[in-house]
Structures are given as structure tokens and as C-alpha cells.
């Protein structure tokens, strides 16, 4: 693979016009990636999901360069039609549309010729890979005191032309003071066996609100990693919802730093998996200063031979007194071949905090099924009602009614 990486990296530099500075950073990141390689289970963070193995098992002849010079057609049928929204559309990793028709133009800014920065997480080789191979790095800025009138949907579409490629995307989002953004990320994949590596950086400044809904629902054979770094200033709120369902493998990693007092973070997620799908949610919620709050609720329904992993960490810095941290994960295992791994972690250096965690998994309650069937429902209907009921309280946590209904629709709740 190393040979392929080198060839593809040189090809990328040859066919792009990165600034000298960026080429320098890319080379550095490239070398760091070559040195570390894809993460494997020897790393604590990856002990339940050996990415190196997953990639070699699922992707034959992975290559790292593909030509982004020609535009791709957008399949408009993918667009959400029940909701007025702004759009950023990526097809096979190439930006195809930027549309903010509903917003005041001077309140939003998009930059795409940024100088790369060194990843802030020095251990994460996938961020090196991303930095080395990403072709365009975007930054969206929402100006001070501006709340977007309509949600922004980032469509991440891949089509049949994309096979066994490594695709890297990098988007930064800055919410200036007193601003707010509802962001839906919707992936739609008709491609086969690619490795899609996405890196988001959110900077949520004072009094700002970020609502981020990540929807991976259509069945596909891709392997994905999405790293989300969120920095939150005083009195800011982030609400993350993950629907983890469609891809063969996806790991969503959320690293959230509550840097300002009264900042709060909510991470809620659903695993809805079948066949051999293997998904992971990994969170690091870092309570850096006092009076910060975090809440995490993850639920999974696993069928066939699927596997879900939740590693949830709450870290409380010594000066982060009055921290309020909560996490709970639950899974229903629909047969014996499914697997749910939960690793809750609390690392607390302050003494006046409230933190709790819990995890439970089990099969569907047969007595409940009997109860529902005795009222005339057949087995499938009874099962569906129980599962929907189980998942509903996660969806109910979504604070935006319109988006909540959209997601209920997507999962037939």
C-alpha cells in the first residue's frame, strides 16, 4: 500500500496547484501517515474496530488519487423536498454546488483557499491522511448575530463511478458570537468499497448554537470515518444527533471541548444495523471550565451479524467544578450473532461535579411481545412497535420540530 500511497500523492501534487506552504504541510502530514499507517486494534481508541483490518477486508486495491477536475452530475432526487434548505453538495468528494438562497449574503462567507493547519490531535493518523490528500479545504463562517433562516444540508453523494478510492473532505465551520446554524449532513452512496474520511472543525463562539444532524441511512459498502472537533465558548450550545445505519462501516468521533462557562453539549445517537455492518460512535467530552454540561444518549438495534461500539468519555479538568455530565447507552440485540460493545469512561479531576453513566443491552422482551400479540398484532408488528418505542426517546431529544419529523420519516417512526 505504501508504494500506491507515494505514487498517488505525487500524482495529486502534480495535478493540483496547492500553495508552496500547503505542499510543505501536506508532505509533512503524508510522511506522518506513512509512518503510522491506518489505526489498528492495538490503539485503545480502535480496540473494537480495527480499521486497518476492516479496510483490507472490505476494499481491494485501495487507491488515493482520483481526478477532481471534471464536474459530476447531481442526482436531484436525493434532495430533501419536505424542507426548505441551503445546500452544499459534494459528489465523489468534489464540491458541485454552494447555494444559500434563503440567507442574507453578507452574513455568510465561504473560503476555500486556506492554509492547512497541523492536526490538533497528534495521534490520529487519519487526520494526517486527510490533510495530505484533501484537495480543497472549505471554511464556512456565520457572522456575528446572524442565525441562518433555514437549515444547511451538506449532501455527501458518491456515485457508481467511484470504486475503491480514498476520499478526503475537510470543512471548518465558524459560528461567530450570537449566531446559530442547523446543519444536516446527509450521505447518499451508490459507490462501492471506498474509504471516506471526513474532518469537521466547529468553532462555536460565545452564545452561539450549533445543531448538527448526521444521517447515514442508505445501505452501502463504503468504509467511513468522520472526525468532528468542536470548540465551544461561553454559553454556547451544541446538539449532535447521529443516525448511524447505512454504511458497511462508519466511525463517528466527536471531540468536544467545553472551553467557556455555561457551555453545553448534547450527543444523541441511534445505531440501526443489519447484515455485517459495524459502526462506532466515539466521544470525548472535555469539561475544561466550571459550570459546563454534557448529555449523551445512544441506543442501538442490531440485527443479523451487525456490531455496534460506543466509547463515551467524559473528561473533567480540575478547575471544571460544577460540571454536569451524563451518558447512557442501550442496545437491543435481535439475535445471538450481534454484538454491542460499550466502554463508558469518566476521568474526573474536580471534586464538585455530577457525573453519571450507564449501559445496558439485551434481547427483545418476549413477555412484551406476547402482550402486544395478545392484542391482535402479529409478531412483526409487535417487534416493530417495541423497537420504534425503544428508539423514539432518542429522536424526541431533537429540539427542532421540522428536522425531528424529517428524521422520524427517514426511519419510519
Amino acid at each position, binding site marked *: 500500500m505504501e508504494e500506491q500511497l507515494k505514487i498517488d500523492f505525487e500524482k495529486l501534487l502534480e495535478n493540483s496547484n496547492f500553495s508552496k506552504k500547503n505542499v510543505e504541510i501536506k508532505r509533512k502530514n503524508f510522511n506522518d501517515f506513512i509512518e503510522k499507517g491506518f489505526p489498528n486494534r492495538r490503539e485503545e481508541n480502535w480496540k473494537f474496530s480495527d480499521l486497518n483490518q476492516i479496510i483490507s477486508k472490505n476494499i481491494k486495491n485501495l487507491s488515493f488519487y482520483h481526478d477532481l477536475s471534471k464536474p459530476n452530475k447531481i442526482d436531484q432526487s436525493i434532495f430533501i423536498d419536505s424542507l426548505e434548505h441551503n445546500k452544499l453538495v459534494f459528489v465523489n468528494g468534489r464540491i458541485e454546488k454552494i447555494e444559500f438562497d434563503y440567507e442574507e449574503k453578507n452574513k455568510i462567507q465561504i473560503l476555500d483557499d486556506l492554509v492547512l493547519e497541523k492536526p490538533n490531535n497528534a495521534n490520529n493518523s487519519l487526520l494526517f491522511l486527510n490533510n495530505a490528500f484533501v484537495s480543497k479545504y472549505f471554511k464556512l463562517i456565520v457572522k456575528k448575530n446572524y442565525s441562518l433562516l433555514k437549515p444547511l444540508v451538506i449532501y455527501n453523494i458518491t456515485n457508481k463511478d467511484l470504486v475503491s478510492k480514498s476520499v478526503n473532505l475537510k470543512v471548518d465551520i465558524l459560528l461567530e458570537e450570537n449566531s446559530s446554524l442547523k446543519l444536516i449532513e446527509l450521505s447518499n452512496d451508490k459507490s462501492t468499497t471506498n474509504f471516506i474520511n471526513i474532518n469537521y472543525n466547529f468553532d462555536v463562539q460565545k452564545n452561539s448554537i450549533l445543531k448538527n444532524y448526521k444521517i447515514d441511512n442508505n445501505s452501502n459498502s463504503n468504509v467511513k470515518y468522520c472526525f468532528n472537533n468542536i470548540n465551544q465558548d461561553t454559553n454556547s450550545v451544541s446538539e449532535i444527533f447521529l443516525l448511524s445505519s447505512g454504511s458497511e462501516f462508519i466511525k463517528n468521533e466527536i471531540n468536544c471541548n467545553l472551553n467557556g462557562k455555561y457551555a453545553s453539549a448534547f450527543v444523541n445517537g441511534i445505531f440501526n444495523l443489519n447484515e455485517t455492518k459495524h459502526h462506532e460512535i466515539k466521544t470525548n467530552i472535555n469539561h475544561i471550565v466550571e459550570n459546563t454540561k454534557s448529555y449523551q444518549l445512544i441506543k442501538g438495534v442490531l440485527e443479523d451479524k451487525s456490531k455496534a461500539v460506543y466509547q463515551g468519555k467524559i473528561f473533567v479538568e480540575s478547575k471544571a467544578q460544577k460540571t454536569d455530565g451524563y451518558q447512557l447507552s442501550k442496545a437491543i440485540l435481535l439475535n445471538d450473532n450481534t454484538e454491542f460493545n460499550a466502554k463508558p469512561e469518566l476521568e474526573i479531576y474536580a471534586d464538585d461535579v455530577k457525573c453519571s453513566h450507564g449501559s445496558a443491552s439485551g434481547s427483545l*422482551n418476549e*413477555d*412484551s411481545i*406476547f*402482550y*402486544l*400479540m*395478545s*392484542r*391482535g*398484532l*402479529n*409478531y412483526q*408488528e409487535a417487534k416493530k*412497535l*417495541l423497537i*420504534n*418505542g*425503544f*428508539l*423514539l*426517546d432518542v429522536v424526541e431529544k431533537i429540539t427542532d420540530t421540522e428536522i425531528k419529523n424529517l428524521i422520524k420519516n427517514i426511519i419510519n417512526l
Partner: protein
Amino acid sequence: MLKIKNLKADIDSKSILNNFNLQIKPGEVHAIMGPNGSGKSTLSNILSGKKGYDVSGEILFENKNLFELEIEERAHKGIFLAFQYPLEIPGVNTNIFLKTSLNAIRKARGEKELDAIEFLKLVKLKAKELKFDEEILNRQLNVGFSGGEKKKNEILQMSILNPKLSILDETDSGLDIDALKIVADGVNSLRKKDNSFLIITHYQRLLDYIKPDYVHVLMEGKIIKSGGPELALELENKGYENFN
């Protein structure tokens, strides 16, 4: 309506019911009384189709072999079990559950399914009859309900589904006297010439409010004595131990 002949039921090779016989005709109310462990709940479970028992013998419901019917098919045919311990179903709205249940049964019977408005009208009416707080119907099914509310909810379901044979499995246990009266009123209002009841209970108390046509004493898996309502009183005076 219901004919049980030589019913034998084992669980994990332990005999629970043995040589059990019972016949219920349309419009009749039968009470089965018995001590703990006599097989009362097993009987109601088997009638409604719960798996896990080794059974032999014969149960005919309207001349159909009950053993050939799935749990939900028995409900479609008109068998209803009011549970001793109604299950809590988180995330499922009580109203939506009731509507799903009613429409599943109506559909199986070839009747028109009710739309939301027709259903709400029906449910309001029934809830009022049973003095059942409608607000509860917007809550998750049985979640956080008091014992009395759970039992009343069973009776409400019974009243909405309008079954031919209703089995009440110790519905009186855990009820205070007011709730007991409401439950009894609910049952009495459903007594019609085609609707039958099988009331399973420890105590004679419920039978003060619901007058049975027949009382059977169940001990060690079989009926040892049958009679009229007076049998319940006799049982109450003597106790189970001296009865055998």
C-alpha cells in the same frame, strides 16, 4: 363457546395442569378460584397462546382447535386476556397502541379500519364509561401507571376490543375498593348474551361485584369442585386447605 377437554400442561417436565375440563357457553360468567400455584395463570396463558408449555388434550373455541391458532389469531377470533401484570412498553403511546390493536383485529375480521377521528370518538366514550382519565391515554403504555391504572387500562382495552371471551387473570389483585368497583362495572357493562367471561381470582371479593354463573375450585391442576356463586362463600369461610 369454549370447550376444554383433558387439558394437560407441563413446564420443564413439571406438571401444572392435569385432566382439566371446562365448558363455557355464550353469555356465561365463570369464576375459577384456587390457591397460589394451582395453575390459574398457566390456564390463562395457554388460552391466549403463550409459548413455553408442553400441552396435550383439546381446547375448542367456537369449534376451532385453539392449538392451531397463533397468539394474534386468537385475539382476532375474540379471545382477550386481561393480564395480571400488564407490561410497560416504553416509547409506545397508549392511544396509538389501542388504535393499532383495534385496527389489526378489525382488519383480520374483514371490518373497516377506524380512522383517527372515529377511533378517538370511540376511545373517549369508553374512557368516560370507565371513569378513566383520558390524559393517561397520551402517556406511554403502562409506563409509570399505578397498579390501579394498569388494571383499568386492561379493562379499557377489553371494552374497546369487545371480545367474545374475556379472561381476567387476577384483575382484582392490588386494587383498592374504588378501583375494584370501576373494574367490576366495566365487566358488568360488557355482559351480553354473546360475551363470556372467565374470571380467575384468589378471593371472593371481586365476586361480590361481578356475579358469576359458575364457580370452580382449582387445586393442583384440576377442578375439584364446581357450583354456583355460593361456592365462593363457602371457600372463603373454610379456606383452601380445609376444602380438599
